[in-house]
């Protein structure tokens, strides 16, 4: 059948896939519009090849100073990193605890609409603002140091945990909740016996995941004075001590990798 079709039809040398947007006018105007925008944007950010080429010898120069990484000031490195780790741990712990009520408030199937929108608004606001900007406020409010960074990460964690746990709560099996309610249990008992067992196992995985994010974030909060290794790193680059800067970066990557490996192991053992 197909043989005959191939014989009768003229052999087409080239084949083109059909276009995604059928209307040619719309397709071309979109393409031209995107092209014009890109040209404008390139001009706006002064993206030109000369600047790129001028940067290449600077990369070589930088790498020359960077290598080998300088671990000689390991005590400074160690204290900065341990402060970052501590900030991440404590803010994750508090963030999870405070995130649970946020999640309950932001679950459509548990609370009345005004409370739902209030908590969703809080989550939306915190998740929209970059952490560094939140940190600026805490630094202004309580002064420089790890505590300001810890508060920043805690606030960010509550919104994160609240959002993800709320989605879990909204997706639970309503049968179990109805069964508990049928026994005459009040709202709090429904929460404890009908919802908590279905949702809580997820919070362990979530806390590990959030710790990972908090550690990565804690590394930069130091730039605005909120503690951790960030200030050390920023200063190292500012003083052209690239070899020390690279040592900090490598140590950070190592910690992230170890944490990723460890969290994978823990999560597999929970499942």
């Amino acid at each position, binding site marked *: 059948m197909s043989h005959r079709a191939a014989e009768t039809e003229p052999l087409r040398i080239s084949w083109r896939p059909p276009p995604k947007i059928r209307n040619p006018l719309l397709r071309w105007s979109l393409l031209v519009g995107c092209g014009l925008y890109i040209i404008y944007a390139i001009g706006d*950010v002064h993206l030109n090849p000369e600047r790129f080429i001028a940067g290449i010898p600077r990369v070589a120069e930088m790498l020359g100073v960077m290598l080998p990484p300088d671990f000689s000031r390991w005590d400074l490195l160690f204290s900065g990193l341990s402060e970052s780790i501590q*900030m991440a*741990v404590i803010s994750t712990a508090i963030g999870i605890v405070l995130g649970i009520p946020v999640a309950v408030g932001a679950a459509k199937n548990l609370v009345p609409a005004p409370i739902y929108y209030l908590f969703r608004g809080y989550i939306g606001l915190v998740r*929209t603002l*970059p952490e560094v900007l939140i940190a600026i406020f805490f630094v202004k409010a309580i002064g420089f140091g790890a505590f300001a960074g810890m508060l920043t990460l805690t606030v960010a964690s509550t919104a994160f945990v609240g959002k993800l746990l709320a989605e879990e709560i909204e997706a639970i099996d309503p049968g179990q909740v109805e069964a508990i309610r049928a026994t005459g249990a009040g709202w709090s008992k429904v929460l404890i016996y009908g919802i908590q067992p279905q949702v809580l196992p997820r919070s362990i995985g979530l806390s590990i995941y959030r710790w990972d994010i908090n550690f990565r974030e804690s590394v930069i909060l130091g730039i605005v004075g909120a503690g951790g290794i960030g200030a050390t790193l920023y200063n190292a680059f500012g003083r052209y001590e690239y070899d020390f800067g690279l040592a900090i970066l490598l140590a950070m*990557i190592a910690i992230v990798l170890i944490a990723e490996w460890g969290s994978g192991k823990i999560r597999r053992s929970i499942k």
Partner: protein
Amino acid sequence: MNPTSHVLGGPFGARKPVSRIKRLGGFTVKLLAVAIVVWSATGLDIHWPFILDAPRQVLDLGLRMLPPDISFVDDIVPPMLETINIATLGTVLAGALSVPVALMAAQNTTINQATLWAARVIVVSSRSVNELIWAIIFAEIFGPGPFAGVVAIAVSSVGFTSKLIAEGIEEIDSGQVEAVTATGAGQGKVLAYGIVPQIMPTVAGVLTFRWDINIRQSSVIGLVGAGGIGITLNSAMNLFNWDQVSVILLAILLAVLASDWVSNILRRQFI
């Protein structure tokens, strides 16, 4: 009643029997977690006078920020556009870079173990180093300005986009690839007609998702001199023009919300 509950130990014994070693292991993990949290709490150098002073500081800050300096709106339009341009160009550049990296990182398209590991190293280092740190590095290389910002956004996005695109490549239908190979097509044609059409929706979806994140990121990279609204924010804070800071924060908030909305609409087209 559930008949198995009797087997598992009494009518109320819904718990599964757990071996003593496992229970001891679980207890040790919990104890370790508590110990880590306690150790972390010791790392926060809390200055109580500062914390007691915090409400007054927050009130002071609030009074300085309100009302926002509306006349400043005109001044932030160009840096806001620059922020959006940095995010868009950075995402486009990341897309161009991440297709080859993703092809190397996917088990079914990578050439050999060496390319697989090279791709993994790229993904891990891009993801573990925060975009603000990339911005510091590229501001040193290309000089302060939006150009460094574009490169920083691109480099910090490559890990994320490559990883997700590689996962998309690993899930492609191998039948289509085999069919194209069976026509006698070379490796380039297999890639162009067998693999790329299948991953295009993933690539488009991942890039729009990342663009939304990048709008958020590019609004802060100016804090370290890499262009965009962050530079305006930094100078407003250094001059204690808090009524201008509140205008900038509102602008960032609006831009992030708008980009979230646009990215959601676009992604619905691709999936």
